[in-house]
Structure formats: C-alpha cells, structure tokens
C-alpha cells in the first residue's frame, strides 16, 4: 500500500547519478520524495518542512565519499538526520527520588493510557522488582476505574480504589499517602482522556500534576495519529512538564510518523512502545530503529531480536556451520527451517521489518502461508529418512506414497521438491564465499543503522531480496551490530 521511501527514491536518485557533489539541482527530486514519504507516514507538515530544511542544508555541497554512490550519500544524510532528531538510544524511566515515585499518565481519549498503565506496572514489577500501586483518576469514562482494577489484578499490582464522585486531585493525593504508608515504590496515576483544547480538563490535569508532583509525566499517544499529533503534543507539552512519551498500538501497520512529530515538538524521548494486546507487550523504544521504519527501510535490529527469541539458535548455528563448509542442504534441513519459520508466527510483520520488502509484506497472508508450510512439513514427514537425505531417489511411485501419506496430491510433492531445489541453490550461493565476504565488511561500520546497506544498492535496483536467490546484504555488508 505504501510506496516506501527506498522505492520512491530509486527513481529520484538516478538524477543524482554519478555526480560527485550534492547540489541543489541534483537533490531536489530526492528531497521531494523524502517529503512525500514523511507526509504519507503521517509526520506533521511543519515538522516535515523543518526537517527537509535541515537535510538540505547539510547535503548541499557535501562531497561524495569514494566508497558510496551519490545516492547512498544522500540517504545516509537523511537517515542520520532522522536518527539525530529521534535521539540515539533508548531512554528509560528515571525513578530516582524519595519513594514513592509518582508516574502520571496523560493523553487523548482512546490513546491507550489505562492499558499502558497496566503494562508499565508489569514492567516495573517484573523487570525492576518494584512494588507498584495503581490508581485511576478517570472519573468520567464509564467503568474506567473497574478496568484499571481488573488490570491491576492481572499484572500483580496493588490497586487503590477511587470513586467517580471524588475529585481527581484528591484521588491522587490519597493514593500517594497510601503508598507512603504501605511503602510502595511507585504510584502510577491513570487519568481520563482529554482533548488538548478542553481548557477545563487541561486545568484539571495541571492541578493533578501539581498535587502529585510526579517524577515522570508520560504523554501516551496512538502511533496511528495523523497530523494532529503536532497540535496535541504542543498543547500537552505547554500544559505539563512532560518527561517522556509512550507510543501505543505500534504493532499495527502505521508508519508512526507521529513519533517524529512529537519528538520534534516536545523534545521528549519516547520511552516505550506498546506492541500488542497482552500485558507484557510493552517494549523499550529504540529511536534509531523507528527512523528506518518511517523511511520504509525496515527494522532489521528489531527483527534480529525477534528472531533470536523465536529461533532455535543451536539449530541455526548448526546449519550455518554446515553451509559454510559447503555441505548440501537436505530435506531434513528444509523441514527444520520450515518448522522454525512456521513457529515465528507473524511472517508478514517480520517481512515488513526487512529493508525493501515492505510491499511484499502487504501481499502475504499469514494464515495461508502457515497452512502451506504445515503441508510441506507433512510431506517431508511422510518421507523415509533416506528420501530426506537424498531427494533424487524419489520416483513416481515414491511420490504417490508420500502424497498418500501426507493426505495431499502428487503435484504438492512435486512443488515441494522444486522449492527444495531452489533453496538448495540459494544455500550453495551463500556458502560459497558469501560468509567470508560478509565478515570482511563487519569491522568497518560506517553505514547508518537500520539496514541501509541492504536497502540501497548503488544504481537503485530495488527492492533487494526480490530478484531471486539469496540477496546480498548490502554491498559488502557494512552492518553495525551492537
């Protein structure tokens, strides 16, 4: 659905071509594409304009390094500026104060404050071993207090009951008093959603802030927010001394340009992102990775983490050794891989994190793909060990037996064998010097994070990974790992 920036730029970058200097004339097309990509990603217009000015100022007159094409140099600047704007590293909560440390949650209706309150509590209880008390100062939305009470029970936090007849300020004060008595480390005060232009409600939250004196005032914002993020962030920032931002619902397919707008306008770090319905779906935010996502260049670092969690590393390493030694890729290996990929669940989501593959991700139906993979596993399961090691012996009669055994058609067996052949070819390519070449490039770093190397080969032949076989991971693989 989105034409991501790397795809957009592939055309525009041709005008930069082999030039050895970036000039107003040769970057104007590319700048326009960046502008469009940012707008489509919901970055607020004033922020887009300021950002483009920054990129332009830096790019003009920049000499093109010999190791990079002019286009790559331009992309490098864009990504670096974006990362600079978003902040370099994750900033966590600062709860260093005389306990109880108070955290105040603020934001629009439906942003996800109550859910985030519970997730944050779980995070603090489990990761930082804090004793956490939750209280709701939302006396407006029906059952908001009940909701927090239920969630508090689910995440193992203490809950301080409040009534809709009470004043939010009084609720906060009473909760903090109670926390002091019971020696709670942290009090999280959930508040009602409010519009930034609702003067009465903004005065109310200011009063709550004054009374509660929080060490952290977190602005909770929906990652799907559009241009209004600029107005809202400014109004909340003006009203409250925000200390950070929680970006919610980031597991959808929004580009999350709002994050950029909010960071630009408030200057406050995004500390966490909400990534799912479950209470543990709250992750520290890594700004450098979002830059890539906004630009549609994938989020390779997050992907690695995800893969690390979901993949049996011993098996993967075994396969890596086998392939680097130039040994064959058998159906046993293929089955292992199928099982691992099937176990990862959301393939479209993972594909979306790969540079240049965002579009393909949109065309993949997780459910169908999983079904196909399960079928393939069933086919391999119906083979004898000998057949798995040496698929060449699979004759017509064996095929029929395998098809019957797996409850599928002979055509399905043929398809699997064909796919195995393709994969085998791919693995061979990778085994031959691929690893060695990769390793050489590792020390250098140099390229910005986020898979830039992979996303932007010289000449703009995009997207990578689509051409066939195993795509190279960037020219020589200048890929920095932390």
């Amino acid at each position, binding site marked *: 659905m989105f034409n991501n920036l790397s795809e957009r730029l592939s055309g525009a970058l041709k005008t930069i071509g082999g030039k050895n200097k970036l000039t107003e004339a040769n970057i104007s097309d590319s700048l326009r594409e960046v*502008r469009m990509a940012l707008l489509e990603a919901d970055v*607020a217009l004033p922020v*887009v304009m300021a950002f483009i000015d920054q990129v332009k100022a830096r790019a003009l007159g920049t000499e093109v390094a010999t190791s990079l094409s002019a286009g790559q140099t331009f992309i490098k600047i864009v990504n670096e500026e974006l990362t600079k704007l978003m902040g370099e590293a994750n900033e966590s909560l600062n709860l260093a104060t005389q306990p109880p440390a108070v955290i105040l949650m603020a934001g629009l*209706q439906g942003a*996800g404050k109550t859910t985030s309150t519970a997730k944050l509590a779980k995070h603090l209880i489990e990761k930082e071993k804090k004793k956490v008390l939750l209280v709701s100062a939302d006396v407006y939305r029906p059952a908001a207090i009940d909701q927090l009470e239920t969630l508090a029970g689910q995440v193992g936090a203490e809950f301080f009951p409040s009534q809709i007849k009470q004043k939010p300020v009084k609720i906060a004060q009473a909760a903090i008093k109670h926390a002091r008595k019971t020696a709670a480390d942290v009090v999280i005060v959930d508040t009602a959603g409010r*519009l930034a232009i609702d003067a009465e409600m903004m005065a109310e939250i200011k009063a709550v802030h004054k009374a509660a004196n929080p060490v952290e005032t977190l602005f909770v914002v929906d990652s799907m927010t*559009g241009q209004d993020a600029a107005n809202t962030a400014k109004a909340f920032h003006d009203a409250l001394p925000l200390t950070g931002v929680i970006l919610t619902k980031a597991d959808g397919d929004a580009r999350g340009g709002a994050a950029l707008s909010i960071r630009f306008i408030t200057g406050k770090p995004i500390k966490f992102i909400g990534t799912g319905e479950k209470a543990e779906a709250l992750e520290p935010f890594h700004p450098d990775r979002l830059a890539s996502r906004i630009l549609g260049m994938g989020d390779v670092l997050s992907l690695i983490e995800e893969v690390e969690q979901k993949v049996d590393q011993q098996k993967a390493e075994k396969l890596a050794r086998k392939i680097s030694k130039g040994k064959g890729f058998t159906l046993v290996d293929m089955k292992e891989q199928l099982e691992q990929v099937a176990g990862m669940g959301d393939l479209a989501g993972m594909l979306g994190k790969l540079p240049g593959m965002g579009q393909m991700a949109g065309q*993949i139906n997780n459910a169908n793909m999983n079904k196909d993979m399960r079928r393939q596993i069933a086919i391999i399961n119906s083979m004898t060990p000998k057949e798995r090691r040496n698929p060449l012996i699979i004759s017509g009669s064996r095929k029929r037996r395998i098809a019957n055994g797996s409850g599928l058609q002979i055509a399905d067996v043929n398809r699997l064998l064909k796919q195995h052949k393709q994969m085998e070819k791919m693995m061979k390519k990778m085994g031959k010097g691929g690893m060695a070449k990769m390793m050489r490039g590792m020390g250098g770093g140099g390229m910005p994070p986020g898979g830039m190397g992979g996303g932007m080969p010289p000449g703009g032949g*995009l997207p990578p990974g689509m051409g*066939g076989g195993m795509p190279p991971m960037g020219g020589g693989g200048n890929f920095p790992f932390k």
Partner: protein
Amino acid sequence: MTQKNAFFLVRWIRGLLALFGRLFGASSKAAPQDFDSKLEAGMGKSRSGFVERLASLVGASKTIDRSLLDDIETTLLTADVGVDATRQITDELTDALSRKELKDSATLWARIRNSLLGILENSQTPLSLPESDEQPSPFVILMVGVNGVGKTTTIGKLAKRFQDQGKSVMLAAGDTFRAAAVEQLKTWGERNNVPVVAQGTGADSASVIFDALSSAKAKGIDVVLADTAGRLHTADNLMSELAKIRRVVQKFDPSAPHETLLVVDAVTGQNALNQATEFHETAKLSGVVVTKLDGTAKGGVIFAIAKRLGLPIRFVGVGEGIDDLGEFKPETFVDALLGKVSEESVQ
C-alpha cells in the same frame, strides 16, 4: 549471540522469507512514482493563516495568487487529507488558475469546496431504520474498529438516538476481551434504560451476540447494537474472530448484520485507510462513524476512505456526552476542515 551468528541469521531469514514470499505468490511491484512539482512548490513556503487570508479576501474580490494556492495545500495536508487527494485538488485549482477561471476568492472558495464535496458525493446516505412493524426480527448493527476509537461510547449515543426515534433498543456486550468493557457498556445501558446482554470477560463474543439476538427477537426489540472488542486490522486471528461473529449473526438472520459500522478516530492519520480496507474485506462494512471531531483533528483521511471504498459516513461524534452524535453532513464537515467557522456544526 555473536556478530557472526546474528549476521547469518539475518541473511538466512531474509533469504528464506524472500523465497517463501515468492513461492507463495507475492510479487514485487516497485514502480517509482513521479510526483508533481506543484505540490512541492506549495510546501516550501508560507503555511500561516489560510483562514485569515481567505476571510480577508472573501468579498474583497482580490485576485488569487500562487501563494494562496500553497496555503490551501497546507490546509489540506495538515487536515490529514493525504498526499494523493491533496495533489488532485491542487492540480485542479492550478489548471483552473491557468485557464483564468479563478477570478476572485469567492470562486476559489467554491471550487475547493466543490472538489472536496465531490469526493464525498457517495458518502452522505443517512442510516435509515425500517418501520418497526415491518420487521420479523431485530435490525442488527455491528460496531467494529481498532482499539480506542470510541465504539462503546458511540453505541451509548446511538442507543439514545434510536430510542428518541421511538425504537426499542438492546445492547450486546460483544467486547469480551478488554477489562471492564462489559461494565462500560452496562453503564451506557443504564443511562439509556435499555437492556444489555452480557456474559462477562473472556466469553465467546459471537455467542454473546447470538444470545442477544435471540433475546431481542423474543422480546420484539427493534434494534440490537452489538459491541465488539477493538482489534488492529493487522491481527489475523482477531480479524478471523470478527469474520466468525459475522457468520454467527448470519446464522440467526441471513440478512443480518443489517449495518456494520466502522468507527474511525478523527485523530488517525493515513493508517485509517488501511483500517477501512481491511475491515471492509473481513466484515463487509456498510458505513463509517467518525469520532472525536470536537478536537483539533479534522479527520481528512475520510476523503481517502470515501474515494477508495465509497462507504457512506453515517455519523460523527463530537464529545463524550450522550447527545454528542450527529448525522454526517458533508458541507459542515468540509467547512470545518477548511477552517470556515460554522455555527451549525452538528445538529
């Protein structure tokens, strides 16, 4: 994990996914688009005070210049109208300008307004309920949408509205996932004094709704408003659950749900189009409700939704009160979006 292994893994998964993607029918369509320079020109310049400018120009019969067009562009983009629709409108205006059709600001005003209204042409069909005595079974309205858009609140307001029209209403607490969603709906039931059918958190959403339909039919209720849990349109399992709800409702009455409303938060940016597309595919939408239009967000993305899906925008939500819901009026919406102060915002 060592660097080497991490690196291998990335390559491995990348290659594997690429291959799988190809094998399972995804194809690459990387067609770089040419973008018009007009929009770019418009964005580099002034972005202040379109409204004031327009106000000062209206009636003054001044000539239109390029920078005013730029301001219009800014207004549209900052209202979430989106790059494509904005470009279409500014192109039209630029053409008209070069043909010297835009003599004064009044003509210009009319032109933009008409362009925007043109996009909403097919979106202004109000929801009409059948006469009570013509119905063998209740009119079923299913509310769907992503998390936090205001589905439950909208149900509360709709219940009041339908009651005011003389209909008997029942609510079905189909959001069995979110903590206290059932209680929230029950509160709305009490406020409206209408029955709420619920089973509690964790129950099967489809069966709660089915129960409500059976009960409503037995009691001769006119309208059933069925709530569902908020779900991201990208969550396959939750979208399948929604498809199941639909199937179960159809089992009760093949013509139901008679109305499936997508609730869209006006604050949402371009992602709302993805939401609408996905929900339409799964739940066969028949209309859209735009909520939270009382804030600073303009909800311009509904132009993109209207353009792609041609769905009627049934209602707009403008606050948390029980009466803060109105029928969608394209003229009012467009005027608000363009910043023209309108007194008849919602009736």
